[in-house]
């Protein structure tokens, strides 16, 4: 459907709100975003399956306020597949489809970080620089 300039502006404002959660790290909303990289590197190491798994588990467990979103490349392709959880900005590396259950149980439900999957070689400052 063809949209007028005004309508496009409205869409922009709507979408911007959603993006804010991802760009504004201190946001205090209850909603969480699980970002799954779908760049070339991560796709080749099964990020599509990871995305599906997250969606299925969330549906199964009937978890509210969590959205699974596919994203473009984060830059650390050799450490892929990359999964980032916002707003807390947790950076998981080399995630496998089998890890999804644990991420949901430990991170999303219990609110604890899955230490074993954290991207360790990169300290936060430099990690930010790369993103």
């Amino acid at each position, binding site marked *: *459907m*063809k*949209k*007028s*300039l005004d309508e*496009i502006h409205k869409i922009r404002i709507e979408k911007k709100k959603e993006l804010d959660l991802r760009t504004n790290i201190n946001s205090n909303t209850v909603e969480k975003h699980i970002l799954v990289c*779908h*760049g*070339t*590197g991560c*796709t080749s190491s099964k990020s599509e399956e990871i995305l599906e798994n997250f969606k299925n588990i969330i549906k199964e467990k009937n978890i509210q306020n969590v959205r699974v979103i596919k*994203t*473009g*490349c*984060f*830059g*650390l*392709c*050799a*450490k892929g597949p990359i999964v980032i959880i916002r707003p807390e900005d947790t950076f998981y590396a080399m995630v496998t489809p089998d890890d999804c259950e644990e991420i949901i149980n430990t991170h999303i439900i219990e609110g604890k970080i899955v230490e074993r999957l954290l991207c360790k*070689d*990169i300290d936060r400052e*430099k990690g930010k*620089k*790369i993103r």
Partner: protein
Amino acid sequence: MSQDEVIEVIKQSGLRGRGGAGFPTGKKWEFTKASKDSQKYVVCNADEGDPGAFMDRSILEGDPHCVLEAMAIAAYAIGANKGYIYVRAEYPIAVKRLKIAIRQAEDYGILGENIFDTDFNFDIEIRLGAGAFVCGEETALLESIEGKRGQPRVKPPYPAQSGLWGKPTLINNVETYANISQIILKGSEWFSSIGTETSKGTKVFALGGNVNNIGLVEVPMGTTLREIVYDIGGGIPNGRDFKAAQTGGPSGGCIPKEHLDTPIDYESLKQIGSMMGSGGLIVMDDTKCMVCLAKFYLEFTVSESCGKCTPCRIGTKRMLEILERLCAGEGSELDIYKLEKLAANIQKSSICGLGQSAPNPVISTLKYFREEFRQHAIQKECKALECKAMSKITINEEKCKGCGLCQKHCPVNAIEGTGREIRMINQDKCIKCGTCLTNCPFHAIGN
């Protein structure tokens, strides 16, 4: 904004082409607008042939809309109504997402006829390339879009005067386009506040090779190679030393250790014999042989030369043969002289950028690692141990503790000695695979 205002903002921003040559984008737009014709085209170069580079790919996969939007802005500015994206068929995800994005834009009326109720019409089509490196060269790319064999045209005339089907054509790289909307949104001062005097904005590099964090990095122009390799790239794995980095892929050159603090911008890189190129950045540690590096890139250009002009078709082949001789331990000092002669001639006499820049990896490795070439030619020695034909792996008697680990790992049983005896390598059996070298806990094996 009027057409001229758009062009003025892009000119003021200082944006330069990210496809390799670094031509000022605003100027290119101005020239194409100035060409008088009722039909003009906008083309996006998404061929990305530099081995190891995938910046453009990630933009197309991650944010295809930013390229479409920029192409529409460009079309408006120069007065075109038709655009083509030339993307290689090896990028299936990029193609798929581009198609989705184009359909979405058409649905919303952002592409098509009478966009936002103005009399501006613009639509975009995708053309798939078969993955020939030369088709990244702008005129060969245009030939290919026209359905002909991908061979370069003689310039001038430039595409801005006579491009697709002889009509004025604007051709820019994916990453160049990806900067456009942000410049229009945030203004030229914002953009030109990032970077150096002559190179504005940021540049994305595909960081690869012997470096800890392999992937994509986006840095402000003027960032030094040291910062990219050590701070962002996390340094060299296995505690090894940095030897050189190759920028610009097969058209570029190597940057040795003494230039680690060179700021990465168009001019500085050119000055030290390399070039910005499209953004491939391959890091090499001290186990890499520079003659092999030159040979690798020459192999690439020889197989990618389209064959239209003799210097590139035959000259690069002769250069490769010399490099192969050197690596096999059959070269001579005369060969180094011949390499230089050939390189200079090919640079001068080739039709397109592929041939003109093909000798660059040889010239720059010769410039910084001449001694290594001489060792190959005269002493028949490859210190990096990469040239298998020449390398002779030996065990240092003083360092060897007789643990026998090398023996255990040797796939051809070439290592002699028993118990705690100092081990010896039987050179007749040794296939120079280097397995013993990596397995020796006392660093007793080398040449």
